[in-house]
């Protein structure tokens, strides 16, 4: 139990995918302007991450490892995640129109997002069992949501400020993102102190 909470803490704060590992920057920069779209995107990311882990972890452990072809993991993971997201989107469009309206449009955007692939690969790298993998994916998704919401607030302030012309738009956004990322470095070393 303690290990699962430690995993959650790590993935949300210490090793935040966006702010510490710099994965999933595209949706992070693209969607953090508006809080409503940020919410939709975050939920879609959490959803896809959980599903992807549920598919890829068994695929790795039960197919790739016994057949000694673990080097195929990149190809196979991408293939299965893309197929899975397409599958889910088609079903959602027909069977759950309100849910599709809320987050369906984000699904194609995060199909082969490096954050989604990253979390599935990370689970294998860290040799987590199935439950730990699911918790890790949940934590990464929540961490993504946290980073997105924080940055939405920062961006609304930056929008109102008097920015020099050469920095307007993407440059000042990236600088702001790097400063937020720097602040998250303060969490390093927290896990060892808290969980022994």
């Amino acid at each position, binding site marked *: 139990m303690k290990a699962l909470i430690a995993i959650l803490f790590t993935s949300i704060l210490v090793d935040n995918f966006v702010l510490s590992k710099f994965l999933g920057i595209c949706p992070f920069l693209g969607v953090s302007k508006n809080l409503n779209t940020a919410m939709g995107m975050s939920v879609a990311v959490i959803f896809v991450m959980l599903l992807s882990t549920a598919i890829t972890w068994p695929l790795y452990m039960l197919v790739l490892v016994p057949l000694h072809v673990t080097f195929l993991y990149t190809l196979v993971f991408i293939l299965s995640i893309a*197929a899975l997201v397409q599958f889910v989107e088609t079903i959602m469009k027909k069977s759950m129109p309100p849910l599709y309206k809320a987050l369906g449009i984000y699904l194609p955007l995060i199909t082969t997002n490096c954050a989604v692939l990253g979390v599935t690969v990370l689970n294998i790298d860290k040799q987590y069992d199935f439950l730990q993998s699911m918790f890790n994916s949940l934590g990464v998704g929540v961490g993504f949501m946290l980073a997105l919401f924080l940055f939405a607030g920062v961006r609304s302030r930056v929008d*109102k400020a008097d920015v020099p012309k050469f920095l307007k738009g993407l440059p000042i956004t990236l600088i702001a993102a790097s400063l937020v990322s720097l602040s998250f470095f303060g969490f390093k070393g927290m896990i060892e102190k808290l969980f022994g």
Partner: protein
Amino acid sequence: MVPVVVSLAFNAGDVLIPVAITGFLAIFFGIVLVIVAKFFEIPSSEKLTHVREMLPGVNCGACGYTGCDGYAAALADEGVPTGKCTVGGAPLSAALAEYLGVEAQTVEKHVACVMCNGDTDSTRTRYEYQGISDCVTASMMFAGPWACTYGCLGLGTCVKACPFGAITVVKGVAIVDNDKCTSCELCVASCPKALIAMIPLREHTYQVKCRNTTSGADTRKVCIVGCIGCQRCVKACGDDAIHMQGPLAIIDQDKCTACGKCEAVCPTNTIHHFHPGVAEPAEVAATAQIVS
């Protein structure tokens, strides 16, 4: 340097098994997706695409639906009234009605109106504001730099919010160009003093351009064109269209017959009259000097 080992003789199985696995997975996923796509197919509606194309595509949400896609879906599937798009107005309502074969909903054009006339000639500032050029930010500092805390700050938040460039700041007060205004209502939400309201644009429309609810004496101290609650307009109105909200007069546009008696008797020039085709108020626009 990474040592490279080249072996000319390799085990065929080492190549075939990965290829077989990946190939099998790819074919399997492909078949599943094709089956799912066939079973979960939604027939695409030609009517929906055509209706969507007819809409302006501004996605302002003034119709009350989630953007133009939302309104198009509602029109095509549920048959909602055709006059909800304020950007398209009456012409769009007629065109939609003709295409869909329904009766057009009558649309009365509404425009935004900034309910304040306190420009630099009429009022003064209490302190010199040197900060971010944004009304929301300025209003957080002691309700803004102007003497009247209910009035327009003139820093242009509504100007930035308007996607049609219909608002300009003239002498410290925002003014809406009635011709450019499409009633998308994005400016209404942007004003921190809630000074912008939608009013019907008829041949003549009369409006009390003040929202100061303090007593007449207090209002007079801060602005010479503010409503002092003398009630002369209430007495002059023959249609019972003007009522007092405390010391502030409000004109009910549903009852107003645009006779103009209120404007004639108003001692502080608070009631303004404007009509289509003129950026109101006409006299201020004629001597307009854009103050950024």
